[in-house]
């Protein structure tokens, strides 16, 4: 059985690419949700996916850790390579994929357990750590998620008692605790107030040296603030069926996308001339 972890990427210029995606098409039954997306995601960078509703940005994100496996009718075509390994190879262990490529969702979704248990859960499940080691893993993850100082005196308290922003950082800590390589974030701040949002954005800058991050956001200013590279997706309307298919318009440095985008459609979207 091929394990993803069998691949040890070398730190060369070429292997700084985490994901190499070519001609990605995603179908839900007969309906094509995303058409022919090709792009690379670089290591230790924050990549933002932006675009109007229905442009397929979340669908593409979910392809990167095989979350679409859980949707019966979903079908993925094209190549999704993770450090040169085909993610959709039938022999790949999809649980291992999701350990290495973690996900943080729009609404904070802590387990109805203690703060400690939330973070320790994944580490315990892996069975790789002793009890003392797990304490260490939890502390480190909470420190990395900039939550430790706020919760260190109440680790046994229920995670549901935390504020929304704290819960979201807890979810990030839970994700970090299993030592992933990539963190996918699907609108991680849309349920949070501006202060909590700023904390998460700041945290992203802190942790990007250890992880590659991809964030889907509706907030263009957030993409401009936090990301190194930005991918703009839009929708194409099929005149016959009137259904919308997502397409990747361009991916480039965030600075370029927000100062001098190459494609007219990007310019119109980021300046609010269409939406």
């Amino acid at each position, binding site marked *: 059985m091929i394990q993803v972890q069998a691949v040890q990427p070398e730190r060369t210029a070429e292997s700084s690419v985490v994901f190499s995606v070519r001609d990605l098409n995603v179908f839900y039954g007969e309906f094509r949700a995303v058409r022919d997306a090709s792009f690379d995601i670089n290591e230790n960078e924050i990549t933002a996916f932006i675009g109007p509703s229905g442009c397929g940005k979340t669908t593409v994100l979910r392809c990167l850790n095989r979350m679409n496996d859980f949707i019966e009718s979903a079908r993925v075509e094209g190549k999704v390579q993770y450090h040169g390994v085909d993610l959709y190879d039938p022999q790949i262990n999809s649980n291992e994929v999701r350990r290495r490529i973690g996900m943080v969702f729009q609404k904070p979704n802590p387990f109805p357990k203690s703060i400690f248990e939330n973070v320790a859960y994944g580490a315990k499940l892996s069975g790789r750590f002793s009890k003392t080691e797990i304490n260490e893993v939890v502390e480190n993850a909470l420190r990395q998620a900039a939550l430790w100082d706020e919760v260190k005196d109440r680790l046994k308290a229920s995670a549901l008692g935390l504020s929304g922003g704290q819960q979201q950082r807890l979810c990030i800590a839970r994700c970090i605790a299993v030592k992933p390589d990539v963190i996918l974030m699907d609108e991680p701040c849309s349920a949070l107030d501006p202060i909590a949002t700023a904390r998460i954005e700041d945290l992203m800058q802190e942790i990007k040296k250890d992880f590659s991050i991809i964030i889907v956001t509706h907030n263009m200013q957030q993409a401009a603030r936090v990301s190194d590279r930005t991918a703009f997706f839009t929708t194409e309307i099929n005149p016959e069926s009137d259904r919308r298919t997502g397409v990747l318009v361009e991916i480039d440095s965030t600075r370029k996308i927000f100062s001098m985008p190459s494609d007219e459609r*990007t310019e119109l979207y980021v300046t609010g001339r269409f939406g």
Partner: protein
Amino acid sequence: MDEIRKNYHKHLDEIRQELVRISARVTESIPKATNVLLDQDLNAAEAMIVADDEIDARSVEVEDNCIRVLALQAPVAGDLRQVVAALKISAELERTADLVVNICKAARRIYGHELDPKLRGLVLKMSEQARALMSEATSAYLDLDAARAAAIDDMDSFLDDLQRQFIQAIFESHAAARIDLQVAIQMAVVARFYERIGDHAVNVGEKVRYVVTGWLPEHTGAARHHERVSKDPTPIGLPKADEA
């Protein structure tokens, strides 16, 4: 799909339209100032000096509006380039208007002294060329015409030539004792004012190109600096460690 930030974009357009109006006004004031100078019309000089306060006020207002857009609307892409260019063009126009005022002030200083016909002719030519440059810059900005804006730089060399001819003519007049030293110096400075107006027109043209294409002028000094630094990272003016 529908435009979704109509008011904001209308506001951006208004900023540019106001700058175009200021620019047209400054352009018209160039030949007026030249008439003031050649006719030595001190009343008109005074009126023009006072009128400059309005240009100052209007450019301050434009800058205020730009800052408001930056603070409140977070402009990006083409919109960002519009606002950044408007801030800079506003400064160019304000400075150009000051040069026009300086020409009017020179009229006071040479009052009572006749200029010989050759000098008068060259002043008119420099004035017309400076006006034409500002007029081109104004039109290029109004239409956001990058090609027209790019041509202004070439036109400017003609004005530079006229200025050199003018300085030469002053030397000749002075040698022939047809002009006072004091007046000669005043007029040399005036020639410089026209030449600077041309430079400001070129700068406006560069900003128009930036709005349209994102192009930034190749600052030759900056390019030389980068080349020097890439060869020798020692800061200029400081001796190297082994020389110290």
